[in-house]
């Protein structure tokens, strides 16, 4: 579904991603771990199409399409979803209105009729239940005044609403309390199908107890330097990153 080949990315003349390769198939869950500042969020942004970053080399193929030729919104409409590490606030725009607009756009792109107001509300309530979003968050402005954990939960709610094919969740687990973590993880699991794939970026092995990854990648200095199964995460939790750095030096 997603294939990244020999990717190089820089921002303001600074090289951040250095020859990264990654392949994600439908039905898989991948975890990307790695020290702060190694370029995990940058990778997620580049896949989503953030123009602040310059791709100097390499390619990103998604469902046989060259992703680089698509606008940000078209990537989203093609099923790429990014759960933001730092979701932004949009004052005065209600979550309901925001989601309605987004869903209409995506449905239109796919040649589907827009949902009626009634059908939309019903659909939204189903999805709210899925992520146990029982409060009135959707009547409030997008992310405005949301607590850190609420923002993260809200990202998963949006993922549930938009039913992406490829979801990249950037540290969606950080800032969540134990219950919220379980809810978010079970939401992600419920949304999992044979046709879609999830990439979770995380610092904590804890999340991977709930969302069991098929692959765990270690990213370091802009590259994936090690790939293993879920046991790699346990090893990292125990030993940190130093041993990998040492391996690389050797």
């Amino acid at each position, binding site marked *: 579904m997603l294939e990244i080949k020999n990717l190089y990315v820089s921002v303001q003349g600074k090289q951040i991603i250095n020859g990264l390769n990654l392949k994600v198939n439908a039905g898989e869950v991948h975890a990307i771990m790695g020290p702060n500042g190694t370029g995990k969020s940058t990778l997620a942004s580049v896949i*989503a*199409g*953030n*123009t*602040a970053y310059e791709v100097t080399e390499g390619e990103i193929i998604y469902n046989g399409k060259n992703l680089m030729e698509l*606008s*940000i*919104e*078209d*990537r*989203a*409409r093609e099923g790429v*979803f*990014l759960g*933001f590490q730092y*979701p*932004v606030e*949009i*004052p*005065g*725009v209600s979550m309901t*209105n*925001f989601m309605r*607009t*987004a869903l209409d*756009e*995506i449905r239109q*792109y796919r040649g589907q009729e827009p949902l009626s107001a009634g059908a939309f509300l019903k659909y939204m309530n189903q999805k709210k239940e899925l992520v146990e979003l029982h409060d009135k968050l959707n009547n409030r*402005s997008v992310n405005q005044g949301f607590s850190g954990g609420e923002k993260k939960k809200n990202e998963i709610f*949006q993922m549930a609403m*938009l039913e992406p094919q490829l979801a990249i969740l950037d540290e969606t687990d950080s800032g969540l309390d134990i219950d919220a973590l379980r809810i978010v993880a079970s939401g992600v699991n419920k949304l999992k199908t044979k046709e879609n794939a999830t990439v979770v970026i995380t610092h904590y092995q804890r999340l991977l107890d709930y969302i069991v990854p098929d692959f765990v990648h270690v990213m370091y200095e802009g590259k994936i330097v090690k790939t293993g199964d879920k046991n790699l995460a346990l090893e990292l939790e125990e030993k940190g990153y130093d041993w990998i750095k040492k391996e690389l030096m050797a």
Partner: protein
Amino acid sequence: MSNQQDILGEVTTSDYKYGFYSDIETEVIPKGLSEEVIRIISAKKNEPEWLLDFRLKSYQKWLSMETPRWAHLNIPSIDFQNIIYFAAPKKKAQYESLDEVDPELIDTFNKLGISLEEQKVLSGVAVDAVIDSVSVKTTFSDTLSKLGILFMSFSEAVHKHPDLVKKYLGSVVPAADNYFAALNSAVFSDGSFCYIPKGVRSPVELSTYFRINAANTGQFERTLIIADEGAYVSYLEGCTAPQRDENQLHAAIVEIIAHTDAEVKYSTVQNWYPGDKEGKGGIYNFVTKRGMCQGDRSKISWTQVETGSAITWKYPSCILKGDYSVGEFYSVAVTNNMQQADTGSKMIHLGKHTKSTIISKGISAGKSHNSYRGLVRINPKAEHSRNFSQCDSLLLGDKCGAHTFPYIETNNPTGIVEHEATTSKISDEQLFYCKQRGIDTEKAIGLIVNGYAKEVLNQLPMEFAVEAQKLLSISLEGSVG
């Protein structure tokens, strides 16, 4: 992102959405301004002597005045002798049904999306449509007249209710108030007149659609709204204008009088032709709007959505004379390309325990300039009065300007005046977030801007709010790259 560039190119070069021209035959008088011209206007309208007098005196005052220069505007000099001061549709008549109306006119309404039929059925709004200078059609007047509500063109009121007109004309905005007010008082063409009798709440929103429609014709509307004791009315004014190559002057006056316990809500969506991308051909809009809270506990509320005009010079104000009277001003002003706006409000507190609120949301894009100018004055006798002002500016791009000029004069120690101001931008992060959810740039800006302006839009009557939301998005198309 070539895709985005394409969209940008397309929308920035596309014609003004409401820029069309309609071909109604128009009766005009020669260009220029003189005592003679004023006499002709007055004669054509069959006016009584006292009104001609009012006009001539105003003209004399105007001659002694100069164009105001204090606004943060670059106003090209206007050749007042190159303007036609009177134009009336030739086929003027009062129609009973729409079938009798000039099909051209119906067509014009349809293009504007405000066909009278639709208005009647859908919104329950009585429409007094002013095309050029003479009212063509008034609806719902039957329903209204049963309640004693008078809603008609200004000219009609001069003949049918001369006492009311004589009593209130110029009572809130004296002819000598300012240069453009003097000009209007001398040459005003037509407008609306509205009187709500004691204790009557108008069951419908009264609405007027204004339109400039004859080439090279200055438009000088005159509106007078009187709410007698305990009366209530919500009044809507909306306008769009056809595309034009020459600058057109628009200098209107709106006067509102609210007696004891009366309330008037005045809402405007202003969408005059703003000119092309170089600012050529837009409307100059110099408006004097003022309300007098005459009686105790009276209330006047101004809501405006300003998206059009090349130049906007407009300060809807309230004089809070009655004790416990309330003045409100809610404004969204959008400027794009080369547009200039200097707008705001004046709240003059005279009575005790008077209260005023100013919420101003400026949105600037392109190379435009958008200024808020506001005066809050608490007079010595206005015990325990208070004002709250919130002036926000939103900038799209880095070639536009936003300016805030608040003037506060507190002459009574018990007065409380609060002023808050913010300036913000639509961030790349916000746009990225929206686009990542599948929403394109244009729609994203529309969403964000409407969110920003929500507090003001919420003040508008429902059907007007929807129209205003669309307008905001249209006005800003292609403004962020």
